[in-house]
């Protein structure tokens, strides 16, 4: 009654069903079991982990989209208080963007170093990523502090509430990312390039680049449109 033995010999499809070791897709020959249709049995561990993390990132992006929607509704609700045109400092935002985009680039470089199994360069790449992330947070906190000092605190109006919430939510994500980055550096240093550490590095990279994507949307929706209003 064993299910697995029902039809012997038909089951060769679990050989690299996800085509991970095939160069550029094509040339797969006659027996073509479509990638992702999962007829080849459970996917390898690193595919499952990265896939699951992608789904998580998508859910995170939906959470941000809710904050964006709220900001779109409340952006003009300044209640007699200052608007974005008055408050936003384009230079500061430009530096923040530079720091974050550069950190994404260095994060990518550390991934290249990981692929080459270079411990030193992986750590250096992660370290620079972290430093740039901290720089971003410092700039953001400075901006928040200057807002509050000029009386534009989140209590002042619905516009400022949603501004602080959406930008602050991104900032919290960066903070969490930095904590994660610290533990990743320690894990890589102590445990080396074990398969599970490599999977986590992959997820961390996904997360850090996603923060960048969200920042691009935030830069556009909050700052660019806000300045032009």
């Amino acid at each position, binding site marked *: 009654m064993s*299910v697995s033995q029902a039809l012997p010999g038909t089951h060769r499809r679990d050989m690299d069903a996800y085509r991970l070791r095939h160069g550029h897709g094509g040339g797969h020959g006659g027996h073509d079991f479509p990638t992702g249709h999962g007829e080849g049995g459970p996917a390898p561990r690193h595919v499952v982990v990265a896939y*699951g993390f992608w*789904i998580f990132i998508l859910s995170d992006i939906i959470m941000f989209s809710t904050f964006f929607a709220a900001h779109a509704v409340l952006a003009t*609700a300044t209640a007699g208080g200052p608007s974005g045109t008055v408050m936003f400092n384009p230079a500061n935002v430009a530096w923040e963007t530079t720091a974050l985009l550069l950190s994404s680039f260095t994060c990518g470089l550390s991934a290249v170093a990981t692929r080459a199994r270079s411990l030193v360069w992986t750590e250096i790449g992660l370290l620079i990523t972290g430093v740039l992330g901290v720089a971003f947070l410092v700039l953001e906190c400075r901006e928040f502090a200057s807002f509050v000092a000029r009386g534009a605190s989140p209590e002042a*109006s619905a516009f400022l509430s949603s501004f602080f*919430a959406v930008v602050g939510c991104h900032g919290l994500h960066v903070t969490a990312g930095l904590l994660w980055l610290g533990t990743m550096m320690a894990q890589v240093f102590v445990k080396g390039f074990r398969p599970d550490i490599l999977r986590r590095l992959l997820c961390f990279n996904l997360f850090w680049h996603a923060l960048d994507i969200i920042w691009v949307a935030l830069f556009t929706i909050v700052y660019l449109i806000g300045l032009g209003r």
Partner: protein
Amino acid sequence: MLGKLTWQAIPFDQPIPLVAGGVVFLILVAVVIWIIVKGHLPYLWNEWITSVDHKRIGVMYMLLSLVMLLRGFIDGLMMRSQQALAFRAPGYLPPEHYDQIFSAHGTIMIFFGAMPMVIGLMNFVVPLQLGVRDVAFPTLNSTSFWLTATGALLVNVSLVVGEFARTGWLPYPPLSEATYTPGVGVDYYVWALQISGVGTLLTGVNFVTTILKMRAPGMSYLRMPVFCWTALASNLLIVAAFPVLTATLAMLALDRYLGFHFFTDTAGGNQMMFVNLIWAWGHPEVYILVLPAFGVFSEVIPTFSGKPLFGYRSMVAATLFICIVSFTVWLHHFFTMGAGGDVNGVFGIATSIIAVGTGVKIYNWMFTMYGGRIRYTTPMLWSVGFIVTFVIGGMTGVMLAVPPADFELHNSLFLVAHFHNVIIGGVVFGGFAGLTYWFPKAFGFRLHEGWGKASFWFTFIGFYATFVPLYVAGLLGMTRRLQEYDVASWQPWVLAAGVGVLVTLVGAVCQVTQLVVSILHRDELRDETGDPWDGRSLEWSTASPPPAFNYAVLPNVQGEEPYWEIKRRAIETQQLAAEPDYKPIELPRNSPTGFITAFFATITGFALIWQIWWMVVVGLVAAYLVFVVFAWRDVTEYEIPASEVAAIDRARRTARQQWLDTHARVGEQV
């Protein structure tokens, strides 16, 4: 030092919550003492609390759900009895207490009764039906469960420490803002739901990944059982909808704690934005609950009709149709917002169109039964009861989807009757059908049929006796959430509903009795074959209860009903398939991570509710440390040697061989 927490938080002046809380507390203490004295603690810790096995986690979800269903049902009893007494009289529940009860009733039933029920069923069944050994992220799964339990704990702590929200199960501002509800009630609501919401979101991530990336060899999408399809749709909805809830409740918390102005009635806040956002989550949530129930019926009805499911592909299409359209109807919860005829028209039509997908399913189930050899077991009774009840609930839903009618019926008891009609008739009936259907798989013995049927009939009749009068009262203009009323024409209907809920109570008692009786008589109800119902999908091919690894060798799936085909072949050829080549199996090790995370989440949540800031910091730092310690583990799996796998599987094969022999003799007589 303790924030807002003082002795005043304990309601010494209100006997009902104090006595109820006291009794529950004493029972809990007694249970804990019994566990420790009897020496069950190590077993409980090693086999259940720290377990990352999807089957154990599923059972714990179901247990949580049953306890919370009872808890929520007691709230319902109190509401019905209060209204029965409250005709031109204050009744026995003062308004501020009554308001907490209907808020807690809705919150508990949806988040901690219905949600754990469907998630519990999915946990237990989906990996078995997919023919794999566990979900994609077993430790995360355990964490999800314990975070859900944390939310349930916090809501119930509010019974004795402080108060619960008086704002309804969805805390509409501005009432829920700190200005109008300064107490901790809404804060209990917000943090209980935020914490359990994280658990649910992680469940969604986990199951989407499991279903899309971890299936037995040969199980293409269109060979998945419909329950797996509905689980996929439900979890996709979780991933897409729960982040909206998280963000919305975060905004409400920012309003309440830090003076933000998302939803306030001052400084440009927008209350209707809350209503829009909460229903952008809330309507998909309805389908998160009911789709897996549809999946249960799609398993139960073919099994007990002795036929394959009618219209498998249309069933899949209808499921995905509902999954997508459920995101385009949220505005029907507030046609009275004043969005104008065009907007209301669009959402009204979208709402009516959803009924098409559901109608396809109803016909498919009926055509599955048509011409079949139907066995009216308890799960089948729940399923047929569902078809009848859900059609009525669906029709009143289409009535409410017509905006002009909705203006009359909005917030009336007609609406209350409608959503109880679909949630009880759909989700709860589905949950009980699934519970009785898969119980033998989980424990190796069936539930008692007599008590199960009694439970069905009392619940079924009690449901109609309760909610048909409420439909009428609603049509007579009775609004929901009334603590006291003075319209004489409503009284007979309210009294009738009061009698109806007592009939339902008999059903609930039968349900509990069924469990107790079945456990006491488990030896007579034992099923050795692993296939007590003559099932069709993969889970019935393994032993009951399944071994930790589910399948000694991953099944090779050849069709839509893989187990049915194999069973037919075994009966025809009079022999089991050849014994496979057993290999050692690696399984994830148990981990206390989920429990410890939930422990600190409870501390953090409680501290946030009472604004004990140092404790918040302690909780968050501890959460980070748990993360680091968990990340540091070196050994994540243990190996079951091939000899042990072989021994376990040979025992199963022996039982199957005996079954085959008996079955052959029966076949010869026929």
